């Protein structure tokens, strides 16, 4: 007798179960392609264990999203909340939406470029990003046929609405308007604090990188989740029971440390810059195709083969760029922005960069900046007496999680010591 439920063992969540429909989707070409796309680009050059792929992350997001959905909608909801969404909680509708949430988690990353986020904006035609490519693939690839062929059929647009982070979507599609119900489901996948995507990647990335920073207690966090009405604007939103507030604090601190220690590690960032340079030189017209069918032919494997070939052949026109990545001839860090420098002179970083480029040549100096950015940590917390408070009020930790900002200047290895000495002089003059 054919199996109706399948399982796969996952290093983070234990057994992950999936049904026949999900199996067909997992076996599809767009999902299998994710086995060949590193979750953290070339971060493995810094953290050798970080070789995991988008594929297992996608399974993990499906699993976490299901736990959140069941936790939020299987418990007794507040009357005011229930009145707003009762039609969607009728057994047939609820079963449909539970499937949509699982599929949104599973399929949310299928449009990723090789090496995931590294320089996505620079490597796609204007107006394109991996989320839009994911939506195209959900509408047009074999995945659409599988979804529509299911009984009852799954509408790919529902999966897109739940999977595509609405705060990113409105930037490229300003007419996007999700119902309060879909906004809630979107939050389950993409939410800043409780989103399944974030919960999975923090746990998974830290485990693979071998760092302790990303760890927190996901079970305690998820069992505290609930749907609440925001008293400040009367909107329905995901919130937390006060008992789980320390798990949320741990997640937010984990996120802060993962950003500062792993995702924005200076050497990791310079590898991203070199990867962008290589891809811009190697790709036709310096861009990935926005045609999803052509993109499907490209994974990290194709890029790495070309890179290895170029690195091994001194006559190859991409030899130098490839060697930076594969022979550890990457640019070296010569300056890292610290907040005291910025407070003394807000324009210091830009001035220093321009002066260094004038002094040593633009081709010998690279820079990378991010932020300052602090994610919205203001969410609803239900206290023991039933009142609803802001997380910023009930938790001093959450109110004070610092913003993340990086400003890095790199120099060609041969010049690094000289540039660093010159930079130190400039910093002392500040």
């Amino acid at each position, binding site marked *: 007798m054919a199996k109706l439920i399948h399982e796969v063992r996952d290093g983070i969540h234990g057994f992950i179960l999936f049904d026949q429909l999900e199996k067909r989707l997992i076996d599809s070409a767009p999902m299998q392609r994710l086995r060949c796309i590193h979750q953290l680009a070339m971060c493995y050059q810094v953290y050798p264990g970080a070789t995991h792929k988008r594929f297992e992350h996608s399974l993990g997001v499906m699993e976490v999203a299901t736990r959140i959905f069941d936790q939020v909608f299987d418990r007794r909801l507040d009357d005011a909340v229930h009145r707003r969404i009762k039609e969607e909680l009728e057994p047939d509708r609820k079963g449909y939406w539970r499937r949509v949430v699982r599929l949104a988690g599973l399929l949310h990353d299928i449009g990723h470029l090789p090496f995931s986020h590294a320089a996505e904006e620079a490597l796609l035609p204007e107006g394109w990003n991996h989320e839009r490519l994911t939506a195209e693939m959900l509408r047009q690839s074999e995945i659409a046929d599988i979804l529509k062929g299911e009984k009852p059929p799954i509408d790919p647009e529902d999966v897109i609405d739940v999977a595509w982070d609405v705060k990113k979507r409105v930037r490229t599609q300003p007419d996007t308007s999700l119902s309060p119900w879909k906004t809630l489901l979107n939050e389950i996948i993409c939410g800043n604090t409780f989103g399944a995507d974030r919960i999975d990647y923090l746990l998974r990335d830290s485990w693979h990188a071998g760092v302790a920073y990303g760890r927190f207690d996901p079970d305690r966090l998820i069992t505290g989740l609930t749907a609440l009405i925001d008293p400040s604007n009367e909107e329905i939103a995901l919130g937390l029971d006060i008992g789980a507030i320390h798990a949320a604090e741990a997640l937010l601190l984990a996120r802060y440390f993962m950003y500062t220690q792993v995702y924005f590690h200076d050497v990791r960032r310079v590898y991203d810059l070199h990867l962008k340079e290589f891809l811009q030189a190697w790709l036709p017209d310096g861009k990935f195709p926005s045609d999803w069918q052509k993109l499907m032919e490209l994974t990290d494997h194709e890029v790495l083969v070309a890179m290895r070939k170029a690195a091994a052949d001194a006559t190859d026109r991409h030899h130098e760029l490839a060697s930076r990545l594969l022979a550890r001839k990457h640019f070296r860090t010569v300056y890292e922005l610290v907040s005291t420098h910025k407070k003394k002179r807000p324009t210091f970083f*830009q001035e220093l960069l321009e002066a260094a480029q004038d002094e040593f040549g633009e081709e010998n100096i690279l820079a990378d900046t991010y932020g300052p950015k602090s994610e919205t940590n203001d969410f609803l917390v239900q206290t023991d007496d039933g009142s609803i408070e802001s997380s910023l009020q009930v938790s001093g930790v959450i109110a004070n999680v610092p913003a993340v900002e990086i400003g890095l200047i790199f120099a060609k290895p041969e010049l690094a010591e000289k540039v660093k000495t010159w930079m130190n002089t400039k910093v002392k003059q500040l």
Partner: protein
Amino acid sequence: MQFYKHAYILRVIQKLHQYGSWTGKTHVHKALSLLRDLGKVPVPFEFVLYKHGPYSFEVEAELEQMRSYGAITMEPNTRGYGVVLKAGEAASLVEQSASLSAEVSQAIDQVCRFVSSRSAAELERLATASWIRYQERLDDPAEVARRLHFLKPHVSIVEAERADADVRSWREGSKE
């Protein structure tokens, strides 16, 4: 560093405090959105219609930038939700680096007087009604109210009509 953008934001924060507002992020986003809809002066920020009405990712990014060098401070609101924004130690640097014209200052003053005492829920309704009328260019009050109710089902038609009327009445007054 875009000091001229910071000058807009800083002036809004200062004026909101002057008119007694507790001055949260919602006040700043909605004030600048209404300022844009008012159409009297250029407003250097893009807005989208987001979960709680008009919202600017640029304003959000510039608020973070301003906090990072001390042009503003952000503290949790001890009386409710969100954070309280205040001018910081480096506010004078913004004022020295970029000055606002008299027209811009006057328009900001008009908007801040209008929004200063409003709650976040009121601001969402007002700014969304204004967006529908002046960005989506719906003219008929009944249509504006229906659209607002469609976008925000928890806002009744009566509340939506009131928000639209409130915005129109304020704009009429600000012409004088």
